[in-house]
């Protein structure tokens, strides 16, 4: 296994310039995340969890400090390079699923493949990944609005996995699910970790955090334990 960190945050700060004054969401965060770790990020509301996830998902760039993913300095990458890294290296699973409402379950999973290969999936990979997360084939043609929360989250996981990313970012993936379904989703994520994925999970729920092998606690934008 590679000894270099897969993700490295070096003195990363994120400051939002608001009308009421500057707000520091991340305050000099230093963090190394190795390949094939299962990490839970915890902390109270406003502690900076979502901001950290946005940084890790390169939806945003640090105000100061350096963020390296696979050794590449995110701040030095072009917009297109970041987009391609989001597409190829990072799988994002959201609390609210965020499936594309105009596409069917199958098309939602196929979509990242189309982005990457610029053509429709003829290999059957999208269907295979959907099956691997326990999604019923018969529901593939359904639109997200016709699926339950658990089914939508399975589709969202399949979509995040279909391009075989190294990193899975899960922002409260069970937050909108009942207990039983939430645990099923966590079993899937635990299985993915066992397959070699690096899983980073934001949660408020200590029971969910127990699935992780390392917990990072944030408070007021600072890492208080990792």
């Amino acid at each position, binding site marked *: 296994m590679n000894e270099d960190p897969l993700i490295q945050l070096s003195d990363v700060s994120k400051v939002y310039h608001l009308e009421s004054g500057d707000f520091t969401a991340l305050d000099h965060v230093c963090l190394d995340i190795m390949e094939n770790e299962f990490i839970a990020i915890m902390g109270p509301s406003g502690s900076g969890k979502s901001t950290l996830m*946005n940084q890790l998902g390169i*939806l945003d760039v640090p105000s100061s400090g350096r963020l390296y993913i696979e050794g590449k300095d995110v701040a030095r990458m072009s917009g297109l390079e970041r*987009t391609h890294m*989001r*597409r190829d290296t990072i799988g994002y699973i959201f609390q609210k699923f*965020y499936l*594309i409402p*105009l*596409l069917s379950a199958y*098309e939602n999973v196929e979509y990242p493949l189309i982005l990457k290969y610029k053509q429709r999936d003829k290999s059957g990979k999208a269907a295979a990944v959907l099956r691997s997360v326990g999604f019923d084939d018969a529901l593939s043609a359904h639109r997200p609005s016709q699926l339950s929360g658990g089914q939508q989250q399975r589709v969202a996981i399949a979509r995040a996995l279909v391009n075989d990313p190294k990193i899975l970012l899960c922002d409260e993936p069970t937050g909108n699910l009942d207990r039983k379904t939430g645990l099923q989703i966590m079993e899937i994520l635990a299985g993915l970790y066992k397959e070699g994925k690096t899983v980073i999970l934001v949660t408020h729920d200590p029971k969910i955090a127990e699935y992780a092998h390392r917990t990072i606690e944030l408070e007021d934008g600072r890492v208080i334990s990792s």
Partner: protein
Amino acid sequence: MRDIFFELSVRSVRLNFLRSLLASIGIVIGVVAISSMGMLGANMQLSVKEQLSSSVNTVIITPDVVRTEPGAGGTTTQQQGIDKSELNDIRNAAGLNEVIPIHRTSSQFTVGSTNGRGSIYGFDPNDIPKFLTVEQGDTIRGPSDAIVGASVASNFNLQIGTRIKIGPPNTVDRPTVRVSGILPTRGFTSDGINTDNAIIVSDTWYTDHYGDKDLYDQVNVILQNVDTISTVESAIDTKLNKNRNQVVRISDASSRLTSISQTLGTITSFILAIGGISLVVAAVSIFNVMMMSVNERIQEIGILLSIGTEKGEVRRMFLYEAFILGIIGAIVGGICSLTIGYSVVSAMIGNTAYFFLPDSIIYVPYGMIIGIVVCILSGLYPAWRASNLDPIDALRNE
């Protein structure tokens, strides 16, 4: 299988079908306006050109408006018309081409108890078959025979043999002519002889009653070969308009045709511009619909951007949507243009003979292309805005 972004655009249009339909109706109206107005203008031009080109081989010589000649003792006299020696000069310059001297005036006349007014033309009866075709009856044979134009014949219900008194109604001993022939409708012609509202008599009858023998109001030269038009015109000009003294004016159908075509072209451009205004209104409507589409789909755009969709791909998706609205509007507008345009041309010109000619029908694809281009241009800013949304802010948008 279709491009996923095109598929997303199609589904978005379907999802907001009514709104999209209303926006497309704006384009339909714009396309119909541009196409119909263009076809109307083209049909006008084609119709006039056809009428004028029938006498394109004719050179028209008219006296300069008022010609002033120095008289004896320093006084001046005015002479209006082309005299015999000038006619001979024209004949010499024209060579083997036909030269038609024309007398012309305007006069009142009476048919039965009905009074009217029209042009009176005096021609050598031998010249008449060279440029006129009698539809009913015969050409001028006797000294009092006359040929009448189609409008005069129909307005006064003239038959062969009907007698017409020429001159103001209160005049005693008015001369009378007998209708020997009726001409077909000639419309607006470019040989300067507008016969529809005219009575044509022999030159002898004309000069007996109006005088001015050997003084002509117009002389037409009918060319055997239309390619010699500039040579003949130049020869006549050299012979008659000597020493910078403008004696006659020389014109021909081609210059009139050009001038009329230019005028009609200007009119066509003007009415096209009026049609274009409706497309501007449609463009605003499309812009509005596209902005609504972007605003309603902000979160969806956030999802697309956050999972690795390129900005260009997001732009493409919205431009496809604008294109779909445009293509729907253009196709429906194109079909409507054919029916509405046909009705407009039929009502305004009264003749649809030229409607399906390429010069006319080309305005349908023109209108459609302009409609589509307007839609795409209207979608540029909304597409640009969508692609430049911040994915984090967009995802938070509910």
